[in-house]
């Protein structure tokens, strides 16, 4: 599968990826509804950190209603019909890469669609083939 990888040193913090993502997922331009998050990193050196799901699948056995699954293309996805919005997967994500919003019942998670990558003007995020 192809998944989103990051080179934070190239990130300018413009937020285009978050806008593109929320648009792809929820048809709104709202960084708070994005499955990729760019955060300022205090201190010297790299200025931003980028959190996005790497589809490791650690969250799959955490879910008690089998709403988290690995899709045929290899991406870890949430079945919105089954998800009861318990957010256990959010707390148990080793990479802090699953998000929530009070107006959305289900968790907000990367589906590996690549919209954010297309929107990134600097190449700070890119798609990489993984097994």
């Amino acid at each position, binding site marked *: 599968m192809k998944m989103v990888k990051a080179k934070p040193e190239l990130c300018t913090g413009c937020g285009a990826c978050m806008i593109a993502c929320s648009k792809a997922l929820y048809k709104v331009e709202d960084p708070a509804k994005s499955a990729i998050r760019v955060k300022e990193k205090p201190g010297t050196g790299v200025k931003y950190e980028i959190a996005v799901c790497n589809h490791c699948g650690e969250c799959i056995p*955490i879910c008690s209603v089998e709403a988290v699954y690995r899709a045929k293309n290899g991406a870890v996805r949430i079945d919105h019909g089954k998800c009861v919005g318990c957010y256990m997967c959010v*707390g148990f994500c080793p990479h802090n890469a699953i998000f929530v919003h009070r107006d959305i019942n289900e968790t907000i998670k990367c589906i590996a669609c690549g919209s954010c990558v297309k929107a990134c003007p600097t190449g700070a995020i890119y798609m990489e083939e993984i097994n």
Partner: protein
Amino acid sequence: MTTGKILAKYEYQPAKIEKGYANQTLYINLSDRTIKAKPVTEQMKQIFTGGRGFGLWYLWNAVSGDTKWNDPENEIIIAGGPICGITQYPGSGKAAVVTLSPLTGCPIDNNVGGYFAPLLKFSGWDALEIQGKADKDVIIFIDGNKGLVTIEEADEGHDDTHLIAEELTEKYADSEEDKRNISVVSSGRGAENTLIGILNVSFYDVKRKAVRVKQAGRGGSGTVFRDKKIKAIIVKYKGVTGDSNNPADKEKIINAAIRLHREIFELDKLQNRMREVGTAHLVGIMNDYDLLPVMNFQYGSHPDAVKITSEVFREKYFTQNVPDNCWHGCSLSCAKAVDNYEVKTGPYKGQKVCVDAAEYETIAAVASNCGIFDPEYVIEANFYCDTYGLDTISFGNIVGFAMECYERGIINKEITGGLELKFGNAEAALELLHQMGRGEGFGEIAGQGVKRLREYIIEKTGADPAFLRDISMEVKGLEVSMYVSKESLAQQGGYAFANKGPQHDEAWLIFMDMVNKQIPTFEDKAEALHYFPVFRTWFSLQGLCKLPWNDIIPADNAITNEPHKIPAHVQNYVDIFTGVTGKNITREELLLQSERVFNFQRIFNLKMGRGTREYDRPPFRLMGPATKEEYESRAERYDKQLKELGYDIEGKTTEEKMTMLRQYRESQFEKLVDAVYKRRGWDKNGVPTLETVKKLGIDFPDVVELISRYRE
């Protein structure tokens, strides 16, 4: 089960949940088959909050001081509470079950998992209030999507929970997918034939594809259920989401919930390992600290206890890496299970079953307290107690008490019907369990509970009533849960004063007192015996589980002002209550909600002719060594204590030293009673004062009239 004719039918428009409340209660009278909606008033919410509070209030209005548990006017109330049903915060799916107990004659409350209370609320009901008695077996079915309640005939079919719950889940679900939308409350044949019956509340485990059950275990609520001829109550509701409780401010809930999930993710593996072994982790700890009941609470540890610790269950029996929660969002996930267990004895011998086994209390009660150290016996006994509908804690106490009487020659095979009830005899314990299920032989007598068994033994054998009282582990008629309190004065009070009887959910202070030494003075102990019982009552008003409060502890808890209260988690509760109801409360107001209900329950005991100081007296074994063997097993400790107190023990016999120690400990206990009653705002007889009930706003005319009868 062939459910037959519909005996009564009620159609309704399911209420929309508003800020945690449906604002209606479903009332069913089985005698005349009335089914109706009752409003949940603002006053009820204000004074009683929900859950246990509602249960006690309905029961108070339903019964008189003369009502017996098996009178038709006794009720069973099942209610969640305003927070019940949120999917985000761990432990938010609990039901409070309230009824008059066959063991104590007073209200009993249980806090039970499973999906029933959340699905009941989302079906439009804050509480289910059942009164009356059916003339033959019935089931009650609530369809929360259609808005339909029916009472149906159920005169054929299975007798025990594991089959009843499975069959009814199959029957009422439209598909495999739909099973998660069903919860069944049921009991078993043992509940009919003893006074220690439980209610099993089911949920469908989608990972295991199995119906599982959690227990409202204490005080015989299953016995009342079967006496009313209820075979099962089924609720069905499809459509649970993170917003079903329609909270006022979801953000507050989410923030607290994710914080706690994160803490559990990072710290549970370093703390209690609830996700791996559930409460079973306590077996080893209690044994190490000499607190594990062994052989009817005579001792606190045993070399063979290593055979029944969580390590053994984890390695060989508990299925790992499955989210064992009993409601959505509980990442603490302590509801461990043994899958594909092949039953070895009794009517289900050879069947492969999924057993909800085993919690600490069960392991200690059925195993170490009976001198048995065999993990497979624990699973077998756990399975049969659940499916027959018997309380594992009471069962273990009964067997332990009977075994001690047998070993001391107080009873013999003539009394036991040929059972060799020696400590360690697992086969005899299981046979007694099957007899309780069938209501036969010595099992039928023993199934009446330790108090009634003691009375029976005294009558049949002429045994010394004072000695038997010392070693029969019950207070108020309820068997003691599984902590040896001999060396912890605060825990003695925690057990003895508990409103419902000696269950640790009201006050578990043994570590705080004995191990961590955080409450050394009488005033400290009295403060703890005020604060913690009141605080812990709060969970059962809300539909919450206690475990996520202190079975996981924030990393920085030790540096807070009051680490034993877990301040960060108390703040979480303030946040989620406010988030759900929109009512901004402080920590003090949180406690006030509980204090009202706590005192009301105490007064309810008075209404039932009990509830005064004399009913708060424990058997001596809760306070110290009741026999020579016990004294000698801890002689060094007791001798040292007597010397420090200035007793001259030089050349004294064990019996003489026992008398000294008893005199001292009983006097300490009386001092504790005085201090605690004072702190709670009760008089010296344990009756809440007029000032207290006024301050709490529970000064209803009948309450005032009742307590004035006890005025000194």
